[in-house]
């Protein structure tokens, strides 16, 4: 096995090195080869021994945590589609439909993402950074299943080029690239990114009579007073456990709060994601939701009275907190302020949902908003920290 792979790469190497036909694609070759063979580079200066962890494994672990979302997303897309057209939602047909819808989106994302990354890597003469793999995995999972492929390509282009490369590439972007691309599509093509028509792939077939494809957030936003919102949701078959498990219409990868919880737990245990951001975010959602409960009245907005846990189970906030807010590059560097950063993301998400009728979901916007404020939080945290230090100059 090892020798076969070795021989394959050895055979391809001449094409990608100086003078070969594909010399400009050397970053691509290297990225592929190092997936199978760790580089042989040794330390040139002390310390002579180094930690076994590298960025490649760091990012690969995030992708491993995202794979359940991808698979469940595929199944769910198919499941919702079968319900919508009035067929029995059996497991295998559902998976098959989901595969047919989601796989092209993932492939297009990776192809276009790689194109831009290689272009910039070749021009700047550096290697491909593994953050790209995560960005390209995250991006399609945030999209509605009906997004046309050209929009997928456009979105990831915007995310990679404007969200990341124009600032100097990985490590210098102040916004999360996947969310930047998603936000671009959201504002450029609102009809394709929101409303009730986009969340379920029907493949051109007619939906059954009386079927509504509204997401829980849309149902909640449209609810009329009086009456508790939970009952409205339950009436639309969105009881808490359905929301939590995630067999609901929505963006491909974000529907299952259970999977987000599991993924967040794994990332925290492995020390990849900041527990401060995630727990801070959960506290932010629950605290704000609970605070708004205090203002709920029978005649007021039904949103005010919904249980804080519903806020966590609905929409993309769980996914956003686990995978988007924890992007270390666009988070604050100082660990203590990550509590505040996470908390505000959670709080803002709930505020946008409850008070802003234009946006049914606030997770994406609040994360991007807090990305912008991360340097400010760092600035103050650093000031406080340095004040305690005895000067040494």
């Amino acid at each position: 096995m090892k020798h076969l792979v070795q021989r394959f790469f050895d055979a391809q190497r001449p094409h990608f090195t100086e003078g070969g036909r594909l010399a400009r694609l050397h970053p691509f070759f290297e990225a592929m080869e190092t997936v199978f063979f760790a580089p042989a580079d040794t330390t040139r200066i002390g310390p002579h021994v180094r930690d076994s962890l590298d960025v490649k494994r760091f990012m690969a672990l995030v992708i491993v945590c995202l794979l359940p979302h991808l698979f469940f997303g595929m199944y769910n897309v198919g499941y919702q589609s079968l319900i919508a057209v009035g067929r029995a939602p059996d497991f295998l047909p559902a998976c098959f439909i989901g595969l047919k819808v989601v796989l092209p989106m993932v492939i297009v994302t990776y192809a276009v993402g790689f194109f831009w990354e290689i272009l910039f890597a070749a021009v700047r003469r550096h290697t491909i950074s593994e953050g790209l793999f995560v960005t390209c995995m995250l991006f399609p999972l945030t999209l509605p299943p009906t997004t046309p492929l050209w929009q997928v390509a456009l979105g990831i282009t915007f995310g990679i080029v404007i969200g990341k490369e124009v600032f100097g590439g990985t490590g210098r972007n102040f916004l999360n690239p996947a969310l930047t691309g998603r936000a671009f599509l959201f504002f450029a093509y609102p009809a394709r990114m929101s409303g009730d028509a986009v969340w379920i792939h029907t493949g051109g077939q007619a939906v059954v009579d009386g079927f509504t494809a509204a997401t829980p957030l849309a149902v909640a936003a449209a609810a009329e007073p009086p009456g508790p919102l939970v009952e409205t949701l339950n009436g639309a078959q969105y009881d808490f456990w359905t929301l939590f498990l995630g067999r609901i219409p929505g963006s491909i990868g974000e529907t299952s709060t259970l999977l987000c919880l599991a993924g967040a737990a794994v990332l925290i245990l492995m020390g990849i994601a900041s527990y401060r951001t995630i727990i801070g975010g959960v506290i932010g959602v629950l605290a704000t939701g609970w605070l708004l409960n205090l203002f709920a009245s029978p005649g007021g907005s039904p949103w005010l009275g919904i249980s804080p846990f519903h806020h966590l189970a609905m929409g993309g906030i769980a996914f956003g907190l686990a995978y988007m807010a924890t992007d270390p590059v666009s988070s604050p560097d100082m660990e203590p302020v990550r509590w505040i950063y996470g908390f505000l993301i959670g709080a803002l998400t709930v505020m946008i949902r409850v008070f802003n009728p234009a946006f049914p979901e606030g997770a994406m916007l609040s994360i991007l908003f807090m990305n912008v404020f991360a340097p400010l939080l760092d600035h103050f945290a650093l000031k406080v920290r340095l004040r305690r230090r005895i000067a040494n100059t």
Partner: protein
Amino acid sequence: MNLIRVSKGHYLPLEGRPATDLDVLPKPSRVAVLPERIPFVKPKLMVKEADAVSIGTPLFHDKRHPRATFLSPGGGVVEAIEFGPRRVIRKIVIRLAETETAAAFPRFAEGDLRQTDRGTLVEALLDGGLWPLLRALPYRDYPDPETEPPAIIVTLADDEPFKPDPAVYLAGRQDLFGYGMQVLARLAPQVFVLAPPNGGGPLQAVDTWITHTVSGPYPALDPGVFVYHTRRSPADNRAWFVSGQDVLLIAALLRDGRYPTERIVALGGPAAGRRRHAAVRMGAPLKPLADLGGEASVRCIVGGVLRGFTGEADGYFGYFETALNLVPAGDHREFMALVRPGYRKATFSRAFLSVLNRDTMPMDCNLHGELRPCVACNACSRVCPVEILPQLTYKSLLADDIEEALAHGLLDCVECGLCSYVCPAKIELCDHLTRAKRRYYQEQTAA
């Protein structure tokens, strides 16, 4: 005795700790002095090739402090003076004579030390070639003889893998150590002696001298970490330090009036055969210890595996180094390294199964990755023993903002190498910080 607990740092689970048995190696045919490995020094040669030298003959002095001389650790003939790029003096090799002659130095009786003038002791150390064993924080250059420090810190043990065990080098020499402590007490108003916990066992003999017990992961026993945790004012940052074994050398010089030539070194590391301690000559060749058996893919690290330098197989010990660690070179491509669970892979992170493994692990000199942009994982900030934020300091240095870096605590950096060790992006953080520090020091002293 005060207890200091250091929480930050990292215990390196490297296998190959030297045993405490002590070999006495036979007299080598050659010894050498490596001016290149003494930081900051600007050597001015005082001998030529083919000159006859005795033990204690000055070989060169430092142009910055002409009184600071470096002496020959052996008697014989200067066989070669090797230069490197830009005429840096790599090594001065001395072929030892059958019977060596030794220069005589002033002797001080133990009872007279209290009455001896501080200046006289400083002179004796400068002439005796051992003044540069004292070093001054924060730059770790040897101190200006004109100055007086707020304190001298004696570090009995060094927790970097792997350095000599104090129980080995102190065995039977507690009187000499006591003499050395009295010398240090004349040089500074305060002398602190740091020891690891359980020093009461093997270090019982010098227990009366120990002032602080320091517990914590590497580099808790570093003098810079001690200063960081105990300083009350900025003046404390200028303390001097000296290693316990060097106190013995200083004591031997002043008590016996002879330039001391014996060092006890540790031989360790995963690739070392019989890991042990050995009594060797100062400037001894590495070869008798580094018995590689023809295996080329082993790196000889003179000093610890984090701060030491790469020695050639025919190299020598430097002025400060007291350890030789042999580590596999690791210059091979590991298949499927990305997906291995890694039960035996050493890491600061929790991304391998080795979090469940309390055992020591084999390690090599492989970089385990490639250079990448910083992804702000904060591992360096979590590991830094003096709570610098290395990634932010590094970024401010890239922007050429030395003021910002100083405010972050650049000068507190103890050059332990842990930030480079843990970095998943394989950025040479410690090297960036150390070089910035040195540059700043040179600017300061040039002015």
